């Protein structure tokens, strides 16, 4: 391993990290703007032009807030909870292919932090660990409402992970690989997986909402029943970490959805661009295409939040266990039959 390779990867990792943070930051802004616009309001517009400095102001405010500790015997766990949530939210971005390759300084820079064979399993693993952040935080708060919120979040995420995994299996049967890089390469042009696996996409989308703990599945933090859910006792930047992790997760989920089902960095006519305009231009356009897709998904997630009311808990479990899981198994069977018939 030469030093140039290490530098290259470091640069990619730092850039990906920075972009994830910025996207998460501006997702909070976008959330407020989208919410406002969907409700015929204007939204934040005082901090900077169009309120663009609002996330900075929010961050500054959270930093200056009092660091409050509840009367808990688990101060260590209380601190480690938001840290885990944040770490897992940022870790998933390592395997996402942000673009194909750029040709700079005589090297082919692959726009992905690591291309491991089991990227998809890695993502599932890391996302599962994310439950611990919420669970530990809620438990260490020494508060009934926090614990209730954490228990709800944990059971919800565990249940929906099954349906999510099963919906993935149908996709994997088709792609035959777990590497996200290869999955995006297979979808060149308009060969997007969503056209071959619409049901799988739908199940994955619903499960992504549930995994993100966002409306209509935000039972973990429903204000009307649980005050704030698992982060009731949190204040200052620890609370900020939880909120920030949620938005970072949203960004990553949108990225995964775009890579798995909407062709990742592929756009129609990419091959033509590579032949005519050069590798770099074509791939920069690819990165832009991926980000447009991601922003589209983030907008969709917000749009749904301000449209659909929250599920009741039994409805949530009903949907997860009795509808989505059988549906994804049926999807696997149909995919299997199709593969047998057409290959």
């Amino acid at each position: 391993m030469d030093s140039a390779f290490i530098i290259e990867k470091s640069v990619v990792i730092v850039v990906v990290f920075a972009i994830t943070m910025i996207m998460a930051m501006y997702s909070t802004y976008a959330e407020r703007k989208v919410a406002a616009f969907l409700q015929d309001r204007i939204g934040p517009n005082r901090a900077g032009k169009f309120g663009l400095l609002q996330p900075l102001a929010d961050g500054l405010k959270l930093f200056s807030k009092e660091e409050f500790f509840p009367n808990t015997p688990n101060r260590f766990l209380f601190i480690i909870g938001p840290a885990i949530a944040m770490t897992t939210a940022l870790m998933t971005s390592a395997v996402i292919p942000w673009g194909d390759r750029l040709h700079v300084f005589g090297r082919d820079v692959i726009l992905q932090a690591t291309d491991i064979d089991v990227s998809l399993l890695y993502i599932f693993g890391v996302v599962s660990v994310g439950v611990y952040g919420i669970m530990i935080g809620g438990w260490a708060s020494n508060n009934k409402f926090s614990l209730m919120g954490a228990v709800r979040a944990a059971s919800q995420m565990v249940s929906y992970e099954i349906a999510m995994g099963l919906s993935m299996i149908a996709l994997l049967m088709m792609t035959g690989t777990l590497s996200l890089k290869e999955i995006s390469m297979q979808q060149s042009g308009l060969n997007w997986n969503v056209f071959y696996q619409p049901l799988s996409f739908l199940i994955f989308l619903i499960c992504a909402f549930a995994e993100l703990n966002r409306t209509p599945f935000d039972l973990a933090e429903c204000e009307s029943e649980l005050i704030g859910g698992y982060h009731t006792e949190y204040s200052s930047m620890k609370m900020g970490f939880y909120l920030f992790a949620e938005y970072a997760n949203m960004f990553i989920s949108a990225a995964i959805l775009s890579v798995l089902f909407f062709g990742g960095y592929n756009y129609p006519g990419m091959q033509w661009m590579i032949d005519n305009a050069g590798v770099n231009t074509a791939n920069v356009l690819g990165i832009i295409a991926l980000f447009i897709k991601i922003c589209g998904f983030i907008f969709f997630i917000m749009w749904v939040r301000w449209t659909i009311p929250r599920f009741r808990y039994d409805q949530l479990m009903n949907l997860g266990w009795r509808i989505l899981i059988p549906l994804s198994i049926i999807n696997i069977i149909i995919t299997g039959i199709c593969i047998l018939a057409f290959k």
Partner: protein
Amino acid sequence: MSTAIQSISLSGKKKEVSKKEMTFLERLYLIAIIKGLIITIKHLFRKKITVQYPEQVRQFSPVYRGRHMLKRDEQGRENCTACGLCALSCPAEAITMKAAERKKGEEHLYREEKYAEIYEINMLRCIFCGLCEEACPKDAIYLTISKELVPANYDREDFIFGKDKLVMPLEMAIKNAQLKNAN
């Protein structure tokens, strides 16, 4: 008889409630969700109704009772004669005043021989009922002509408005006089 009454819908919006089983498509909820999404996306492009307060001011109704104003007449003289009826009528006891005699050479400032040397309204006590306006025999105090709200402040002391804030600006009195002459 009772069924006949129940079937009447005065508003025309009455819907019969039925307990029929939902069809498969309805139970999927997907169509309902898409309908909801279309409704919300329509609102995204609708005109925003926010009034950006300090820069934009909402048009007040002609009878809106806002901040008080002590009126001047067409020649720019203060109407108030410090009779104290407004203070007496005030249910919140927000008004205090101190009367003084008009001296020679002050005829252009005060209409009557007596005037309010100090006139204070505590805006935290005031309930904006308008009884002072009704009680005033000299047409001096009005809540409806300033078309202003009492602004927020950090200090309780700053909510006691003296004559400096209450008396109608001279320019406004001159303008009123010009308008009246024009008519």
